[in-house]
């Protein structure tokens, strides 16, 4: 397949105009000693038909969540995506555009981002939101850096109930400016607030809490905010936006910065990416935010329009003094989320959240009745919960997989103290029948 339109004749004309004989001469300035004297070892070229065959074959080697009913969550969720979402983001006026540097011909993407920012503010209960970040993990790490810059402090407290991968990314990001990251233990499935208070001092820039947390449990955000604010530290909350249809917004609990993973809002799981990080904050922190921000303004005839704004924070203006090095966002994923939320609407998001809640509790209550299965702790949860299992989760998951089900996440991988603990997730896409099959198989009913 080639996407080069030149005919042989045209190529000759162009070379002739340049006064050269062949394409080779274009590269005369590249020293001989560093030239590649052989062809690149990349297979192809292939025709479109061959390419399609190859990709279908690779895709066919995978088993999807449509073939295997999955009870995996842990940061990535199988929520239903309305058909119209893919149709809109497949409009190539959107997906083949660059960052909207020329606002006069980019009102489509600019206005959709403005709508996205508005929706994120509404869900999180915050004043301002940016145009999106790479993913939930990196958005949370950026929030920690932002909190350090805003408070001029260099210590970050992060609960061990925050997604283990998010904590890993936080540590990686902290290694650059050499910030101190302290992990706070949990008790009964939630952040140990007493331990948190012991770590709080005037060097702490931020306290990071996830809501619902990695175990699916609901944290007492209001208490965490109060504790953080007593030493003038900021509360960073990392929230699942789907839960916000039902759960109190972090803003109403006192959070200063809210981040999270927006994948559940109309973005396919796609084996882990691309997904959608989001970030919102209190108005007083607006000029500290990393990333693109879209603002409303007027054109030279007084008509409403949208532009990238507050760019004095950004790398292309401030270079080494920028608030972050980020120079893109996940615009197309943000558009998907905006379309998704529009289709669900005010009532729809709550209804999805409520179905997740009801189905998760339905599954939970049946599983804990099975012999040998116990609740890990007794705290309210949203769509995920932790079960203590009678056998190693690895064995259980093997049995489930042989019977067409992907079980939960084995928590020992991240928490050595949680041996024989499994994190299960139930969203609105799992049916009553799926749940019954899971429960039957867990109870030993194997084929």
């Amino acid at each position: 397949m080639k996407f080069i339109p030149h005919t042989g004749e045209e190529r000759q004309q162009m070379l002739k105009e340049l006064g050269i004989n062949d394409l080779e001469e274009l590269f005369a300035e590249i020293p001989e000693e560093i030239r590649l004297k052989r062809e690149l070892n990349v297979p192809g070229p292939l025709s479109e038909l061959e390419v399609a065959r190859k990709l279908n074959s690779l895709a066919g080697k995978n088993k999807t969540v449509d073939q295997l009913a999955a009870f995996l969550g842990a940061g990535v969720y199988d929520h239903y995506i309305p058909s119209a979402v893919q149709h809109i983001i497949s409009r190539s006026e959107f997906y083949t555009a660059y960052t909207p540097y020329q606002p006069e011909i980019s009102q489509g993407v600019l206005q959709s981002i403005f709508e996205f920012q508005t929706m994120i503010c509404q869900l999180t209960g915050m004043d301002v939101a940016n145009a999106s970040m790479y993913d939930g993990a990196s958005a949370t790490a950026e929030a920690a850096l932002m909190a350090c810059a805003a408070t001029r402090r260099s210590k970050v407290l992060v609960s061990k109930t925050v997604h283990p991968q998010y904590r890993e990314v936080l540590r990686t990001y902290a290694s650059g400016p050499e910030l101190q990251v302290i992990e706070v233990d949990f008790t009964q499935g939630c952040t140990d607030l007493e331990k948190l208070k012991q770590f709080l001092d005037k060097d702490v820039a931020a306290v990071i809490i996830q809501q619902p947390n990695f175990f699916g449990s609901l944290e007492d955000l209001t208490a965490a905010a109060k504790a953080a604010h007593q030493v003038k530290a900021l509360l960073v909350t990392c929230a699942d936006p789907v839960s916000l249809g039902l759960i109190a917004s972090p803003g109403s609990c006192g959070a200063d910065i809210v981040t999270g993973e927006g994948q559940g809002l109309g973005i396919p799981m796609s084996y882990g990416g691309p997904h959608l990080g989001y970030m919102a904050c209190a108005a007083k922190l607006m000029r500290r935010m990393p990333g693109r921000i879209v603002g409303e303004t007027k054109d030279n005839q007084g008509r409403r329009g949208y532009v990238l704004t507050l760019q004095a924070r950004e790398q292309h203006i401030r270079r080494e003094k920028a608030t972050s090095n980020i120079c893109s966002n996940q615009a197309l994923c943000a558009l998907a989320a905006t379309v998704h939320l529009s289709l669900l609407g005010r009532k729809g998001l709550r209804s999805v959240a409520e179905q997740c809640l009801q189905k998760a509790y339905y599954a939970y209550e049946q599983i804990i009745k099975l012999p040998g299965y116990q609740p890990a702790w007794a705290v309210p949860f949203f769509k995920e919960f932790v079960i203590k299992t009678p056998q190693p989760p690895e064995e259980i998951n093997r049995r489930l997989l042989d019977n067409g089900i992907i079980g939960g996440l084995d928590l020992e991988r991240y928490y050595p103290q949680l041996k024989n603990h499994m994190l299960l997730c139930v969203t609105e896409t799992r049916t009553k029948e799926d749940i019954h099959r899971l429960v039957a198989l867990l109870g030993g009913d194997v084929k």
Partner: protein
Amino acid sequence: MSEPLIFELSRPGRRGILPPENDVPCKEVEQLIPAGMLRQDEPQLPEVSELDVVRHYTRLSRMNYGVDVGFYPLGSCTMKYNPKICEDAANLPGFTRLHPYQPEETVQGALELMYHTQNYLAEITGMDAVTLQPAAGAHGELTGLLIIKAYLKHRGEKRTKVIVPDSAHGTNPATATLAGFKVVQVKSDLRGNVDIEALREVVDEDTAALMLTNPSTLGLFEENIVQIAEIVHNAGGLLYYDGANMNAIMGITSPGRMGFDVVHLNLHKTFATPHGGGGPGSGPVGVKAELEPFLPKPVVVKENDTYRLDYNRPLSIGRVRGFYASFGVVVKAYTYLISQGGSGLKSISEHAVLNANYLMHRLAGHLNIPFDRRCMHEFVCRPRGLKGKGVRTLDLAKRMLDYGYHPPTIYFPLIVEEVMMMEPTETESKETLDDFARSVIKILQEAAEDPEQVKTAPHSTPVGRLDEVTAARKPVLRYNG
């Protein structure tokens, strides 16, 4: 043309998508979650029908300009055609419907695709190992510099300085700061190369790395690259390659052959994945063998005929994102790579450079070309003799909108006043370049004869020039209706 906000289309009680009836027995929500933890207010999302939504966003799409709409010679951004088959491939349910925590035995196709992509990118860049984890170019830069930092620390060296040329992308100095280094700028010489003497002066035992784009942001091949690599390496520093301009050199030379130790690529530039209006992108990082242990984890490995994720990497810098990669973007790049093969990739670079030189040649009599040299895949130029008319590069760019083009990059690189940077890419035809050149020449004539027409442009877009000053001074960042 104007379009209300989706919130302004809202009508109380109107619904779009309805979820199915809940098929499990329900309890009162308050029985499950304490009232204090429940949301008291309803989020003010719009209440609209599916048709309202589809029309609204379709109308917005028509107020947006993409490569599929027309010529997009935005320098440094490589706005080439994004093949449709790549979109189809990434949308296959066999890829989109995979949970990242699924057992490895159920995702062998995905891992195989990632494994091959790692290898192909290593081959193209002349590196020994590649991570697909970074989510964008700037994210790749951060990953690369943290790898360098970890490598130096492992060797017991404390080097604090990162050198960047004055022509560098803004992300380079911003990333160096984020990675905890001090930024030192080095100037360019009259041919647009790094000034070798100035470089010698700043390179010392504190130098961790030099970050370089080659071809540079001026679209010029750094002729002294071998010497530059020697200077930095002799001082014990490393060379970082900003891969934004990789489109010019595939199969001709490689960062590895030039002496670079760490490379990031932009799959959304060179490897034809779409830019999405600002993302998602993907910024894989390649390294030479001695830096491989420091790559983010996990890395995809092959053992016998099985692919798996390798987490056992004690020297790794850790993670830079959740999970493994912008996998959907990687699928598109893989599709593109095998559609081209080694010979096709070289041809891409040759034609990208041919097109840029041809366009530069067509415009040379009308615009000032500050560096009288062969350009690579892009070139810089600037208007001449328009200052007296009060016409700036910005005005020319805005007038190009009226002619149906996306303008080139303007006011970057920072070292050339009133600069325009044009990158036509290999996917544009000779007649497109000819038409564009004619339009630019016509606009330059207008600027000389009827400057008001140009200074008040654009005249045919959905909105005119927007007041960016007020937008920043009195920010309105959300709908408050």
